[in-house]
Structure formats: C-alpha cells, structure tokens
C-alpha cells in the first residue's frame, strides 16, 4: 500500500447507498482514498421481534458487493458491527467467511481489529493475516489510546497476531465526540499522539471522527449548515503536530452518516426527506417533510433549493452534485432515501479528496 498523510479514509457502512456512491467515482478519485468498510449490522425486525435474516444470509452477498463496487484496490474491512459470538450455520466464524471469500474475488482487504475483540476474533484475524499477507489494521478509540496501559496492550495484541507495527495500520478513532473548543481538543489529541507507541513505525496512521448529527431531529426544515468539525480539527491538528515534529495523520471521517448505529423501531420513526450536501468546512443540509406522509416528490423541490444556493456554486464536480441539478430540472428521478445516501456520499468523497489536495497544496 503506497500512500501518505495526504490520502483520505472514509468509514462507510457498506449498504446500497454507500457502495453505489463509491462505484460511480472516477479512478482519479478512487486512487486518493481507501475506504474503511464496515460490514453492516444484522438488522432487527421489530414486528417479528427477531433478527431480519440469518447471519449466513446477511453475509452471503457482502464480499461480492465489495468486489463489484470497489474492485481489487486495497480496503480495510471491519466486522465491528457483527456480534462476536455469531457463527455461520456450519460453525464458520464470520471473519473467516468474509475474508476467505474476499480473497478469492480477489480483493486486497485488510482485516480490522481492536483491543476489545474476543480471542476467537483475534485468532481469525491472525489466520487471515497469515494467509493473505495484507497486514492488519488496529482501530483504537481515543480513550483506549489515552490510557497508560496502551503500549502493553498493543504489544500483547501484536504478539498474539504475530505481526509487527510495520505491517499494521493504525486508526485513532475519535468516534463522535464534542469537538468544541477545537484548539483545546487538538491539544488533547496531540498529547495522546505524542505518547502513541510505535508512532513512526505503523504502515499508515489515521485520525478518524465525525461531527455529523446523530439524528436529523435537531435540524430545522429548509437549509441549515452543520459544521464539519472533524475537518476543521484536522487542519488545526496538522499544524500542532507539525510544530511538535510528530507524524502527520491521514484524515478519516464517516462521510454523511453518524458513527453509531441506533437501531430504533422503524414503526416509531418518520424519516424526513433530506439532502446532505458537503461544502467547505460543513454540510449544507436541506430538510423537507417526512416521506411517509409527504412522499418523495419533495426531493425535486429540495434539489432546487440546493441548486439555487450559493453552496452549489463551488468548483467541485461530482456525479452526486450533477444528480441534484438534474433532479431540480426534473430530468432525473426523485429517488428514494437510499438514492440520496448515494448522492450525498458520492459528492462528499469527491469534495473531501479535493479539500485534502487543496489543504496540502497551500
């Protein structure tokens, strides 16, 4: 894997909207980022009061969806959203199932692990790493990283996995913290980074986090700008780390999704039609009425709203941005909620790769 801190790592829950967004990106953009792909959670059927599918059914199509939409470029694959004790009907561990299949596609998938995964999980990661030779990725939360015991824990894990820091990628996961005041948070992270074990040895080093709202409930109808604090923080952090002569991290975010899955009963939810349009330092979120009572036609009007705003006039070009223009002009369909995840995610990735290029060019 050959990239430095000017790369981009979006964490994507690999559902239809997300993978179709990635599939439509041109190769010139695809070479600028490496997705951290999360195997989506096994959904729950609230009416039947049981999980929607068996784990076998749930995982069956995933490897092909990675290959069809991302191809054989490197990617990180994390099963953090799958329960550790869930085995397939024939007793296979999900980690083994996924990576065996990915390898035959063939995909260059790097398995992700962390400090709290159980021994079975680690055993499977070790087997995958030994077989594929793509290395592994450690995803460590900021709280874990701040503890004095981190070095011992990491060294013990690497020893279990029989792998060196040089063959491992390190992701410092901030999750969805409170980012404000940014300068204080940047200093707090710098203190943590300065104490990270093997900082200069990891194959890559990423800081991942998001300020994307956990729900759209607090967003008012019409247009509202939500700051992308993680990007503002990243720029500040790079300046602080440069001064301290510490390794610069890769920027990672959760694109246009919250970091946590909150699996609420859909019967109690009435999702609104929203367009999440990534702009400089923020998201321009245009929110309409709920789609259950007001339908999807409103997406034409919401697209008009985005198109007419000054935010649409920046220099980024993306399939997602173009779709908004077409939808406003009624030359593209109004779509459904998945389509608008695709639109938003596609534009987001294109915009962020451009942000990173401009930031390091200046």
């Amino acid at each position, binding site marked *: 894997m050959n990239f430095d801190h000017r790369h981009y790592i979006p964490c994507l829950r690999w559902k239809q909207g997300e993978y179709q967004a990635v599939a439509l990106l041109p190769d010139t953009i695809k070479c600028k980022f490496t997705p951290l792909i999360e195997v989506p959670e096994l959904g729950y059927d609230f009416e039947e009061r049981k999980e929607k599918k068996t784990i076998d059914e749930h995982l069956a199509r995933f490897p092909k969806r990675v290959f069809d939409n991302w191809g054989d470029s490197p990617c990180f694959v994390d099963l953090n959203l799958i329960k550790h004790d869930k085995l397939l009907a024939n007793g296979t561990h999900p980690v083994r199932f996924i990576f065996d299949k990915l390898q035959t596609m063939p995909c260059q998938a790097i398995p992700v692990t962390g400090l709290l995964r159980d021994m079975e999980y680690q055993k499977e990661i070790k087997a995958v790493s030994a077989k594929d030779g793509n290395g592994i990725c450690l995803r460590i939360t900021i*709280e874990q990283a*701040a503890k004095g015991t981190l070095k011992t824990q990491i060294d013990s894990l690497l020893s279990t996995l029989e792998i060196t820091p040089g063959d491992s990628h390190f992701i410092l996961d901030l*999750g969805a*913290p*409170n*980012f404000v005041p940014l300068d204080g948070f940047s200093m*707090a992270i710098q*203190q943590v980074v300065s104490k990270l074990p093997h900082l200069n040895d990891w194959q890559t080093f990423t800081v991942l986090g998001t300020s994307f709202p956990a729900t759209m409930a607090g967003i008012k109808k019409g247009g509202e700008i939500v700051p992308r604090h993680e990007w503002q923080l990243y720029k500040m952090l790079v300046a602080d780390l440069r001064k301290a002569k510490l390794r610069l991290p890769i920027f990672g975010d959760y694109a246009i999704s919250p970091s946590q899955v909150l*699996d609420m009963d859909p*019967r109690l939810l009435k999702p609104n039609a929203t367009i999440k349009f990534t702009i400089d330092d923020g998201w321009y979120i245009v929110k309409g009425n709920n789609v259950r009572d007001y339908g999807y036609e409103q997406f034409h009007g919401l697209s008009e709203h985005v198109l007419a705003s000054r935010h649409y006039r920046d220099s980024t070009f993306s399939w997602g941005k173009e779709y908004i223009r077409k939808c406003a002009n009624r030359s593209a369909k109004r779509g459904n909620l998945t389509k608008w995840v695709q639109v938003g995610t596609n534009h987001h990735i294109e915009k962020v790769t451009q942000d990173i290029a401009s930031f390091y060019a200046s």
Partner: protein
Amino acid sequence: MITNERQYRITSTQLEKLKTAIDTFDIKASTERTKSKILAKAEIEALRSEYENLSVQLHEYETLKSGSVEILKASNLEELPSILIRARIAKGLSQRQLADALGLKEQQIQRYEAEEYASANLRRLADVARSLGLNISEVAEFRPTSQEPLGGKNDNLAWDQFPVREMYRRNWFEGFSGSLDEAVANAEELVKEFVKGSLDKPVQAAARQRVRSGGSVNWSALLAWQCRVITLAKKEIMTNKYNQRTITDEWLTKLAHLSREENGPKMAIEHLRNSGIRVVVEFHLPNTYLDGAAFLLSDGSPVIGMTLRHDRLDNFWFVLFHELVHIIKHLHKGDIESIFDDLDAKADDIEQEADEQAGEILVSEDKWNTSLARFVRSEDSIRDFANELGIHPAIIAGKIRKEANNYIILKNMVGQGEVRKLFPGTNFS
C-alpha cells in the same frame, strides 16, 4: 396540549400504540441488538417518557371536558393563554363555537391556541376572556408577589406572607405546642417571635444583602429559612474561630479531595467546622429557589446554609465551594453580610466571580481546556480525569452537563440521590 377532539383521537391512538410497544418491549433482545444495555434502557425509557407525557395531556383534556373543573387559577400572566384554552374546553365549547362567539374563523382560534395566543393583542385576549365568562377579578390577581428585599420595611414584617403552615410542619416554632389551626390563628405573634429569636436585630438592611434569583421569590419565606439556619448554626459550639489566613490553596485542595470519599459531604462540613465555618443543611421553603447562602452572624463568624435542592453530588460540591468563595472574598461586616444563591439563575459581578473561582478550585481551567473527558464525554474518560485531579467523577460530569447545557446526558454519573441520604436528620419532603 390537546385542544380539540381530533388531537384527542390522534393522541389516544398514539398512546395505545406506545402501550403495546412498551408491553412487548424485550430488553434482552434490545440489548443484544444495540450491543449496549444503556442504549436498550434508553429506548424503553424514551417510550415510557413519551407515554407519560401523552397520558398527562390526555388526562388533562378528559378532566376538562368532563366539566368537573370549575376553578382555573393562574399565578402569573404567562399562564393566561393556557387558562384561556383550558377554560374553553372546560366550558364544553369547541374552537368553532368560540370563534362564532367572537365573530372569527375557526382556523384563527386553532392558530391562536396552537401558538398559545402569542400573536394575540391585549384587546383580543380580553375579548376571549369575556366570551368564556372568565372572572376579571381573577385576572386582576395576576400581579406578581412583592419583590421587596428581606425585611425592607424593617419592623413592619409581612408576617401574613410567611409560610406558617410549612414552618409549623417542620416544628420551627420552638416552644409552641398548639395545633396547626392555632398556629395559623396566632401566625403574627409566632412569626415575630421566630424572627426575633434568631436575628439579634430585627432584620438586616437591604443594602447588606445580595440575592441571586431566577424566579419570583417569596421574600418572607427566604427570611424564615435564614432565621432557621441561624438558629441551628447558633446551637453549634465552635472550638476554632474563623481566620481567613487558614484558607490556603492546600486547605482548599484537601477539601476538594474529600469529594472522593463515600462520606465526603459530611467530612467536608467537618473540615469547614474545624476552621470556624458553620455549615447548616436545611431544605428550602417553597418559592425560595435556593441552593445555598453565605452570611455572617452578629459576631462576624461565617455560616454556609445549603438546601440540597438538587440531590446530586456535583451540585453539593459546586454550591459548597461557591458559598465558600463568598465567605473568603465577598462577605464583610458592615458591608455585604448575606448572600442568597439560586445557582440556576444568571450570574453577575460577585456571583460570576464565585462561580469562576469555585470552578477553578475544583477543576483548573488549564487542565479542563485540554482534558479528553471534556471532548469524549464518556464515563471512562470522566473517571480517568477525576482520578488525575483527585476529585469525585460527579464533579466532572456536572461540569460537562453545564457546558453542554444538556442535563439529560451522564445522568448516572452525577451522584443523583447520593447527598440527602447522608443527612438523615433533615426533612427533605
């Protein structure tokens, strides 16, 4: 608030659905699904809270519709719109019938009620009140209670405004063995005796008091509370006299460190007492909105009164340090001699200084600025930071809640219910 039959029907249906959802909620399955017991609990709590909220609304509408409500009273002008809506329902009038009576369209009344008459002018409010047959004398009673400072008229105590029944219930009239009715009948005499017994001079001059409050305070109740605290304080025999020079940084740090102890609040009170500062815990009286107070006895010795209005560890420690700062910096004989604090209210001058310094002693600004707990806000990070500072995690959790202006988060971290139980001799009901 439900204002018409349509909303009533919708709410009833919603309530039934919620009830089914609560009855069939499987906490185990939810925990497995969300991988978190906390999230699972949050889901069921959210359902219950919504259920409770809708039930209250439904019940209120049903009660009003039943015609059993004959008297509706508002204690301030802000409540008038709500009274107008409730009075209409109680009279059995529909929004259309009221609109007809006023010569308006039904939609206009719907709008008024939906926005609680925010856009209606005074004349329109008066017309609606008249149409509903509201007693104007009731409206005339909507004046706020007097905002005179404590004992502003010196000897001329507003004794009839003292909460005599509550004072009787708490056995504050020492030596009086009569019934409640007798206490009410002899209120003037009892109150005067009560005040005289604790204050050496009739009452303090207004200029020597500071009151921080966000509500409409009953000044007589505030004075009664202070008298009670003084009475209790005077009963304490002190071995050491207060000397400001003993309050060093080290002394304050030691006090903050006591917060880690299980019996920390009691130990803190002892720590203060050893340095000549009396601390009295006495539950607040209705309409005093009081967290704590600091004042000087006639001999100049300082007293801190605490109400434990909020039964939380974070609140206890913040109030204690806040009042302590007042004692160290702001109370001087012949100048300001009493300060009463509702710490939920907006702060200015000396209040701001006390807030800032109390905060600084507990969690220094330097450390706070770059502490991970401030940003991550997780229980683990809060515990780590509290350990580093040597204080109770509740203090950090409380600070985060205040900064975020969100009192729903970290509910399990602020030591809810951990303070009052340390004071079994005090009646908090």
